[in-house]
């Protein structure tokens, strides 16, 4: 069957396997040596694409929940949205969530995803008490910060290349409301944006939408959104009805002009320099989940998200250079997000490190990869690195320049014979 990830690029022919108990999983793993786990297919690029795919979505039971401690034990195919639906009304929220709730717990661990509160709560793995994993030989082991710590550090952020994550114990976060008190800060340029991030750094959640088409004096202008859980005792939570993009938009629809007008309007819509809103968890964390298949707006050729992080002391200069280049190219899109990370964790391939991260969507079109190759050079010049869960194109050299533990990861793969079993198109491309 034809398979692709969220970016609708590339498209490959693959065989997908399902399992609902551990023996079935072992039976699938045994004869295959070119296989990768796939969660809900929300990574953008080729991280979960391989000739043989292990679909973990049908392995999705809650196993236990302790209302006292908030520790949830569940199978790896459970979606974050299922956790929210069940536990927000009981006063619990996931401690770390990315900008979509439509991802599996297994995928969240494999990508070691981060969210708007990275500077306070770290990455997804920081909320993991322990998980179990099936190794290449079918053996099932437990991993935590203290048990098999090496495998833990390699697997969190390890893109499914160390084994099949089976289930996990996750520490949920107590909340007293399903609403978020949000403050929106309108900034004039990149310098202003950096100042605002600094000024509002005590807020638990923060993220900025950046107008990547703005040039000159307005370069780097943002809407910075920060927030805290409200405390009104109202825990009502309903999954909103979804709008849906029913078909691929023609790819000419998103062009320099339409994106530029959208960005200007979106920025101008917020009038006051600082404003306050009370919004739902869904609209604060998951605005795009409200539109199913929003990836179709980019047309049949698909799109990619370019996400990198620069060390704090080099963030300003690097971003200025990169944003100028993107604005000049006219290829930006309206989905561009800037965020200040907290400190890196000790996982070998986890993406976040202290500094600014920028994520931008680009429609796949002629000339795009040439532009991104140029941007790659700037990112490396400023000691930055790339996020594998978004990536579909970086070269081996570009990727490994940012990750000092990459050889440790390769050696571990060899030692456990993981490199003889688990592969994705991406792992082959970047040589891990």
């Amino acid at each position, binding site marked *: *069957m034809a398979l692709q990830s969220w970016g609708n690029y590339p498209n490959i022919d693959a065989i997908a396997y399902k399992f609902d108990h551990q023996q079935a999983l072992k039976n699938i793993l045994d004869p295959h040596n070119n296989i990768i786990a796939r969660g809900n297919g929300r990574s953008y690029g080729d991280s979960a694409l391989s000739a043989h795919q292990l679909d973990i979505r049908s392995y999705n039971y809650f196993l*236990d929940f302790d209302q006292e401690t908030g520790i949830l034990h569940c199978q790896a195919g459970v979606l974050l949205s299922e956790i929210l639906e*069940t536990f927000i009304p009981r006063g619990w929220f996931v401690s770390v969530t990315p900008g979509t709730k439509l991802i599996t717990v297994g995928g969240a661990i494999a990508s070691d995803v981060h969210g708007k509160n990275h500077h306070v709560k770290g990455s997804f793995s920081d909320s993991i008490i322990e998980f179990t994993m099936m190794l290449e030989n079918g053996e099932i082991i437990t991993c935590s910060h203290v048990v098999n710590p090496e495998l833990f550090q390699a697997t969190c952020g390890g893109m499914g290349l160390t084994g099949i994550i089976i289930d996990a114990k996750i520490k949920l976060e107590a909340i007293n409301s399903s609403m978020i008190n949000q403050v929106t800060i309108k900034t004039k340029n990149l310098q202003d944006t950096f100042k605002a991030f600094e000024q509002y750094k005590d807020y638990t959640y923060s993220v900025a939408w950046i107008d990547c088409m703005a040039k000159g004096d307005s370069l780097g202008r943002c809407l910075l959104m920060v927030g805290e859980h409200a405390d009104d005792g109202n825990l009502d939570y309903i999954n909103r009805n979804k709008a849906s993009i029913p078909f691929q938009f023609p790819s000419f629809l998103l062009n320099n002009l339409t994106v530029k007008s959208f960005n200007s309007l979106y920025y101008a819509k917020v009038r006051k320099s600082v404003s306050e809103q009370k919004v739902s968890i869904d609209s604060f964390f998951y605005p795009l989940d409200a539109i199913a298949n929003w990836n179709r707006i980019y047309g049949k050729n698909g799109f990619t998200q370019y996400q990198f992080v620069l060390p704090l002391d080099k963030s300003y200069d690097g971003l200025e250079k990169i944003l100028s280049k993107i604005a000049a190219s006219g290829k930006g899109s309206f989905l561009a997000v800037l965020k200040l990370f907290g400190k890196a964790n000790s996982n070998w391939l986890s993406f976040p490190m202290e500094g600014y991260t920028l994520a931008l969507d680009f429609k796949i079109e002629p000339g795009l990869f040439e532009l991104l190759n140029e941007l790659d050079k700037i990112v490396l010049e400023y000691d930055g690195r790339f996020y594998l869960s978004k990536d579909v194109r970086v070269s081996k050299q570009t990727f490994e320049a940012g990750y000092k533990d990459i050889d440790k990861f390769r050696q571990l793969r060899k030692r456990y014979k993981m490199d003889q079993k688990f592969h994705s198109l991406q792992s082959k491309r970047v040589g891990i």
Partner: protein
Amino acid sequence: MSYVLIIGAKSDIAKAIAREYAKHGYDLYLAARNVSELEEFANDIKIRFNRNIKCFELDILDYISHKYFYDSLEEKPLGVISAVGYLGDVSETQKTINTNYTGVVNLINIIADDFEQRKSGFIVAISSVAGDRGRKSNYIYGSAKAALTAYLSGLRNRLYDANVHVMTVKPGFVATKMTEGMDLPEKLTAKPEDVAKDIYKAQQNGKNVLYTKWIWKWIMLIIKSIPEFQFKKMNL
């Protein structure tokens, strides 16, 4: 009284139906063969929805046991949903007919008598679009489902006066264990969760015959309208 009885509860569609009904506040009786395999699933529903779940061993081919099973339920269910289905090959003719038709009918007859007496309840059974016209690829299965469809139609007619609602469900392609490995057209193939949502909604609204996905109603209308002299030459 708050229990819904689901028979054939181990199938993917049945599990999705169980979650859908639990989500809407119903308690569940789950009946299946080797029911211990459902323990983790039942536990999941308890955590998710805070509902009561009871599991029962039931072999749909062990007709004698059906009455004993139903009588043993202390609190009678307010509705029953059969998700029993077996897609065997031609060498399994007896098993295919007995599972899809004889067994289901034998059990539902017992339940229907009770509902009729109580003058309340609903009966939902999953038949199949395969029962709308026999095709060479699965006509044993199809004919058993066709018989089930006719049975349900008659039962609906009989129970109308007793205020008992009977719904026939005809799924088209569904991505389940039963169809794993088949190359199904993506646009026509439903997920078990979608089927479950459709069933819940249609049952609550008192629908008589449900095609899911809805487009199958029109597909089958076309397939049924092909003249036999032409149909017999086709590769379906």
